[in-house]
């Protein structure tokens, strides 16, 4: 697998720390599922999290805390035995996305946007929104007027943005200052996962995350 455009360190750190809105978490989790190198970087970042946790001055636990935890364990014995069912796989959607769609690519609830373009909005927390986009081969991406940060992951086909080509597993991070008109590559219909900050709910964190990327 040759993913050429990886997620930035800043976004990956925020994901490892658990500080991103759910919509962006979904994009990063899907990207990491498709890109082993990003997974390596994520796990290394989590190793830093572990080292910092280990270095913290602890807070005293309540009296009887250990015993309360043992009671918690004995009250939920089933969790220990529960074995994971073998998951279904999909050639287009990685596992975290299948959870949100509720199945494979055939289960996506597409709504037409005109000219063959379709979208399916996925449910996530209010801070940001996330949708799947279907763009016919050779067509322009719809103008979705994003505010703040936009993160796009290619799942099928490819799109061209300026001099860059983004294929399956590639991620593009942009903000509203970036004027761009991505076009689906001619070879195949393009399916993307796109997360944006919800309009009017401006989150100061994400634009700052994207800044180093945009300076390049």
């Amino acid at each position, binding site marked *: 697998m040759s993913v050429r455009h990886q997620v930035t*360190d*800043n*976004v990956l*750190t*925020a994901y*490892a*720390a*658990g*500080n991103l809105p*759910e919509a962006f*978490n*979904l994009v990063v*989790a*899907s990207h990491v*599922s498709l890109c*082993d*190198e990003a*997974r*390596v970087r*994520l*796990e*290394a970042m*989590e*190793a*830093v*999290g*572990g*080292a*910092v*946790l*280990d*270095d*913290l001055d*602890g*807070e*005293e*636990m309540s009296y009887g*805390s*250990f015993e*309360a*935890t*043992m009671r*918690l*364990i004995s009250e*939920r014995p089933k*969790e*220990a035995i529960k074995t*994971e069912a073998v*998951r279904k796989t999909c050639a287009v959607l990685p*596992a*975290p*996305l299948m959870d*949100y769609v509720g199945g494979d690519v055939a289960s996506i609830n597409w709504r037409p946007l005109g000219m063959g373009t379709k979208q399916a909005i996925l449910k*996530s*927390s209010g801070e940001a929104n996330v949708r799947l986009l279907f763009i016919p081969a050779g067509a322009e991406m719809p103008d979705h007027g994003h505010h703040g940060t936009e993160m796009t992951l290619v799942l099928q086909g490819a799109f061209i943005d300026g001099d860059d080509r983004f294929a399956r597993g590639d991620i593009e991070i942009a903000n509203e200052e970036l004027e761009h008109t991505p076009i689906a590559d001619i070879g195949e219909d393009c399916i993307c996962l796109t997360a944006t900050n919800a309009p009017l709910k401006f989150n100061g*964190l994400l634009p*700052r*995350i994207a*800044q*180093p990327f945009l300076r390049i």
Partner: protein
Amino acid sequence: MLTETPQAEELGAKAIIAPYSKVGEDAQAGRTSDVEVISISDAPWVDHVYRIHTERDQTAFRELFNHFAPRVKAFLMRSGASEALAEECTQEVMATLWNKSHLFNPERASVATWIFTIARNRKIDALRKQRRPEPEDLTWGPEAEPDQADVMVLQQECSRLSAAVKSLPDKQRELIERAFFSDLSHSEIAAQTGLPLGTIKSRIRLALERLRRDMK
């Protein structure tokens, strides 16, 4: 190289790691030659998790609890939880550790890192009240047995990373802590922190490659 008279801690460490490998005794003896000096401190807590998994060992669990529960509680409080909520969540995190001890993979993470990820997910769930999309799990399919030498090197590298975090200048360490324990700007976290992440990345990469190979 094997020293002629193995140090006691060397033998102790072998006993710690050996249960994770199903390879025969001969193969194990061969593998140890890859590792020059092994000490128990290079794989802290790995044996505890193993004893919890195989023997439901409450003594091991209590020791692990005494070390990590106060740190997890401090992590949650610094992430914005009240003392009561942090106490409750910490008990749940420690119960999860007990229940999911079979999922710990010492070839890819230290125990501190594993606990950090459990605590982080609890934080998202309880504090942010969001779902946490996780990357596609690579461990389903044929179960891959960790390579003993790889386990040792990764655990040693994690110990080195911990030491490096402890010895960082205050200002730099504060930045990293803020990235993980509060909701602040991540663009300030320079990619180059001087932390020895290179070797950890290459060990994780090896482990993933093995996993991919075993899954075929």
